[in-house]
Every structure is written in C-alpha cells, then in structure tokens.
C-alpha cells in the first residue's frame, strides 16, 4: 500500500516520467537485442512485440497517448500478426531460413550501416532544428534552449512560447494530429493511400503467381533463392504429406478442369485440410 502511495505521489509530481523513461528505454533496447539473438524465430517475434509495447510506453511518457495506442494497434496488433503469419507460411523451425550466405551477410552489414547513417543524419541534421517544426522564420535557439516546442507551439510577436500542442480538452493529441494531417499534410496523407494500394497489389501478385510452368511447380514451394539448401526439407514434407490428385494446385492445371478463377491459380502451399490428413 505504501508503495502504491509512493507511486501515486511520483506520478503526480512528474518525477515518475524519468523513471518510466528509463524502464521503457531499457525494456525496448533489451527486447530489440533479444529479437536478433533468439534462436527460435517465434520467440524473436514475441520479443519484437515487447519492443513495440515498450516504445508505446515511451510515447506515453511523452504525453502522446494517441500515438501510443496507435503503436499498440498497428505495430503490435497488425504488423506483428502479419509477421507471425509469414513465419507460419515459411515453416516455423526451418533452420534454412536462419542460415545466410556470405553475400547475404555483407549485404546486411552494408544495409545496417546505411540505415544507421541515415538515422544519425536525421537526428543531427537540419530536420530536427526549430525551423523544421516551426517554419523557416522560427527564432534561432542556442544550444540547450528550446524556443519552439513542437508543431503546436503558439508563439507571440516577441518569439515567446505562450502555448503548446497540449491542452486539457485534447489530452491525447488526436484532434491536434487530425487538424495537422488534414490541412498542412494533405498530400502526404493521400500519398499514404497510394503506398498502401501499391503494397496490397504487390502482395496479391506475389501470392498468386499464375504464370508458372508446370515443371516449376516444385520450386514454387521454396519461395527462396537457395533451392539446394531446402531440398531435404521438401523431401520430408513430401513424404509426410502425400499429394492426392485433385486436392492441390497441381491438379488444377490438369486438362479437363474447368478454367475457373480459383482453379487456374497455383497454391504455393497445400491447404490446411491436406496437412491434417497427412
């Protein structure tokens, strides 16, 4: 009970924000390291969920609860579900997925270095200065001073900050975000729709490759470049699950079948029903 009272006091006074920041920051970093070190791919994915939730907590300490809940809804709720489904699609404990060749490793290191450089530039470059959030005629601030607080800063003639984005009626910041997004950032918003559309169409085309020749159908199972490494796995799966004619995509291409939308399509993996029977 005393612990709770202390916690309540700390929350009220604001010192808890510092504590919470450290808790969430350590949690986020620890989970992120665990993501890339875990041997089991699903455990790694779960650590990523923990990481996302910790970042949601960080947003909360920054007094942006709308962003925080969106982080949970979209990242932990949707993107990770997609990840897990993709893991299931590829086969969970498929060790071949973990093994990368030398070229892959070099590419990963190069890509990582590029990303780190871009992030460093983003943080130290001109995009985080006062001009980036308050417009080009924002007052210049010396080191350690903040004259312009975020997007919603209301500055009077002398350049003094007299109000911020936060107000009691809009504690989550959602109305503020909405106003900014649908006035100043209209084009990025509509472009986001275009991006999502392209992503969907790409996914449909990738998942429904119907222009494969029948002799390529075996390789269609692989979904990866190194077909040699997968040979063993495929043999195992094939042995465990004999393909019955008329039940999988291969049979769909047989002459005499009705050329319907569904039949002409190659099933990359067998239906759940097949797996159960096998």
């Amino acid at each position: 009970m005393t612990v709770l009272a202390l916690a309540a006091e700390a929350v009220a006074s604001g010192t808890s924000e510092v504590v919470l920041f450290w808790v969430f920051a350590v949690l986020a970093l620890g989970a992120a390291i665990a993501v890339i070190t875990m041997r089991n791919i699903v455990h790694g994915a779960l650590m990523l969920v923990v990481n996302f939730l910790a970042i949601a907590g960080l947003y909360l300490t920054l007094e942006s609860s709308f962003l925080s809940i969106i982080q949970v809804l979209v990242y932990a709720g949707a993107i990770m579900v997609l990840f897990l489904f993709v893991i299931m699609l590829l086969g969970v404990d498929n060790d071949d997925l973990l093994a990368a060749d030398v070229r892959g490793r070099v590419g990963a290191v190069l890509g990582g270095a590029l990303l780190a450089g871009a992030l460093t530039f983003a943080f130290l470059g001109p995009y985080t200065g006062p001009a980036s959030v308050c417009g080009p005629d924002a007052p210049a601030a010396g080191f350690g001073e903040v004259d312009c607080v975020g997007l919603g800063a209301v500055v009077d003639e002398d350049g003094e900050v007299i109000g911020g984005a936060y107000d009691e009626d809009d504690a989550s910041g959602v109305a503020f975000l909405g106003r900014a997004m649908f006035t100043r950032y209209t084009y990025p918003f509509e472009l986001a729709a275009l991006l999502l559309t392209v992503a969907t169409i790409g996914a449909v085309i990738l998942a429904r490759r119907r222009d494969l020749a029948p002799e390529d159908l075996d390789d269609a199972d692989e979904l990866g470049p190194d077909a040699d490494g997968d040979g063993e796995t495929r043999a195992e799966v094939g042995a465990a699950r004999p393909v019955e004619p008329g039940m999988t995509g291969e049979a769909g291409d047989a002459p005499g079948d009705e050329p319907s939308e569904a039949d002409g399509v190659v099933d990359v993996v067998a239906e759940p029903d097949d797996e159960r029977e096998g």
Partner: protein
Amino acid sequence: METPLWVPLLQATVVFTYYLLLTALLIWAERRVVARMQSRLGPNRVGPFGILQTLVDGVKMFFKEDTTPGMVNRSIFTVAPLIGVIAGFLSIAVIPIGGEVTLFGETFTLVVADLSIGVLWVLAMGSIHVYSVFLGGWASNSPYPLLGGIRSSAQMVSYEIAQGLAVASVIIYAGSLRVSDIVAGQAGSGFADGVPGWYAIPLFPAFMVFVIGMVAEAGRPPFDLAEAEGELVGGFNTEYSGLRFGMFMLAEFMSVVTMSAIVVTLFLGGPSGPTFGAPEAFAGLIGTGWFLLKMVVFIFFFILLRGALPRYRYDRLMDLGWKVLIPVALVWTLVTAAFVILEQEQPGLGTDLRLTLASIAAVIVGWLLFSGREPRDAGDGLDRHEPAPGPVAAPTTDTADDGTTPASDDTADDRQEVAP
C-alpha cells in the same frame, strides 16, 4: 484535485469483481437456457436453480491435473492463456459500469479510468487478445491446435477491422474518443421525444456490423470456428488441461460479457437511463442497474444464438467479414460524416434526407432478404442452405443438389442403410 488512493483501488476492484461475477453467472445462464432450448433441465442441484454450479465447477478445476504434453513450448504454453485473461480484463477498463457515486465525501464514476484515448483502448486490447489464441495454438506444437490457432486468429483480425470501422461512426457522432463523451452524447432523447438518443438508432448499420463482429470476435457460435469439434477437436486449446484450459474458457466467456458491455456503452447509451427522481448520491447506482439490464439483453442474445444457429463454414465466415461487413462499415462511416456536415450547414435538411434514405435502405434490405438470391449475400448472418440434421435427410438433399433425378431404388437403399 487530489483523489485519495483508495478511490482508484476501489474502482479497479469493483469493476474486476463485477465482470468476474457476471462471467460466472453467464456460464450458468447459458447452460440453463440452452438446456431449456433442448428440452433438458440443465444444472439445478447446487444452490437455488443451480446458480452456484459455476463456482463448484471452478473449484473442481483447481483440483484437476494440469498436464503439459512433451512436445509443447513450455513458457509460451503457460503464458498464452494468461494473455487472454489479462487482456480481457484490461479491455473493459474504460467502460463505465455506472454513473457518479458519492462515498465518504468522494465523488467518482464507476469506471476504472476515463482515458483520453477511450474507445481505442478497447480495440488495442482486442488486438492483444489475438496473441493468446495464436500462441496457444503455436506453443502446443500439435496439428489440431496449430490449425485452430491460425484459423481463429485470422478470423479475429478480420472482424477486428469491421468493428474498428463501426466504432469510427460512433466517434464521428460523438466527436471525441473519450468514452464519457460518447455516453454523454447519448443521454437525453433522440430525434423525437421519448425515443432514447442511443447511437444504435441513427447508426443502425454500424450497430449491426458491430454486433455481428462481436460475436465473431468472441469466437461464439455460429462463428466458433476455432473449436469446430467435428474437425479440429478443440481448436487452439486442444492440448490444454486443468486450470490453464480453464483460463482459456474464462477468457472466452468473459469476452461475451465484455463485448456486451462495450456494445451497450457505444451504441445503447451505457449507464444512462431515467433515474426516477432519485437523490444525487444514488442516481449513479440506478445507472448501474440500467447498464446491467442492457448487458443482460445482449448476453441473452449471445446464448440464444448459440442454441439456435448451426456453425458457419470458414469461407463463408471470411466472405461475410470482408465482402459484406467491412464495405458496409466503410461506406456508412462516410455517409454518416456527410450527414453530420450537411446538418451542420443546413439544419433540418439532413434529418429529412436521412429519413428518406433510411426508408429506401429498408426497402433494399427487405428485397435482398426475401428475394431468391443466395442467402449469404443478404448479410444477415443466417445460412438457410444448411442441410437438415438427421441421417435420413442428408442423402436426399445431396442428390437433389446434384441436379440429377435420384433413382427411387437408390434412395430407398440409402434410407435403409442409414436408418437406425
């Protein structure tokens, strides 16, 4: 304003107990009502009308062996049911179970927290709940749970979208994410005197989408594909036993209670209702009574659905979600917004137009329902093509569907073979 610490503690405890008790009562009520629908008695030994049956069942479950099969992933196998129960309890944190009450000089609302993000909290906890099902199936490392887990998580995420878009209509009407604003917006009377100002009336399509979505989200019949016992044994919880299985069951039954609470709050005014001139201090408690009454209606609806409808087929379930509910919810969101703006600019015009459109919509829906089209296109959640149960009816239906005239001898043979 400083509130003493016992207030949030009391709020959390009251809400926690409220939902736990209601869940226990739901399990009993379901067994009684379904039994009555099937001309049985149901549990009637423990306590008056067998009302304590859930309690003794729960206690019994503590003394059952909780086995862990050899092939499971132990840590996740244990964590998965916990995620379900905890996310279930957390989702109702923003739902007020009553109005304002005054106790020992402190006035507070019977809600855990009136968060500024309000309804989005409910949706976020629903999306966390998916992990319970998915991980339960995956960690079991066994064929049936794996299939059941991935099936039901796909089902849950599909209907989550439909629900989320239905909630968007509510936010449009209330103009706020806060649940207290949504409840306040439904107080008073609606478009006519004596008609409640519930959002279910102007937002009827969104309300229907939400109701169908919540049945699917809770994994209840007719959408209980997860535990289609004829094909998947118990779905994602096949390998579970003892109290870890009990936790899955608790989460499932509790989602019926929480979903009822959520739909009542968003569409049926929550705890608002006439207070009969009661003094201020008790008005909030009368609100609790209204809230409970509205919830019981929905809980009863869930039970009736289970007793009355056969299970949906998986492809039809996904079709209903993606091709009917989501487009309807999306279009309705835009239509609602257009009406609100229209009414803002030309008061009065919007109401007339809405009534006209509502009658046109009613005619279209009626035509869809009663014309000779495929029943599933009507989107009413009913499947009238389900073959009649019983061994005799099945062969005749099959031959008739093939379009061939059944030879009378064959039919007679079939009947003789399958007749008991």
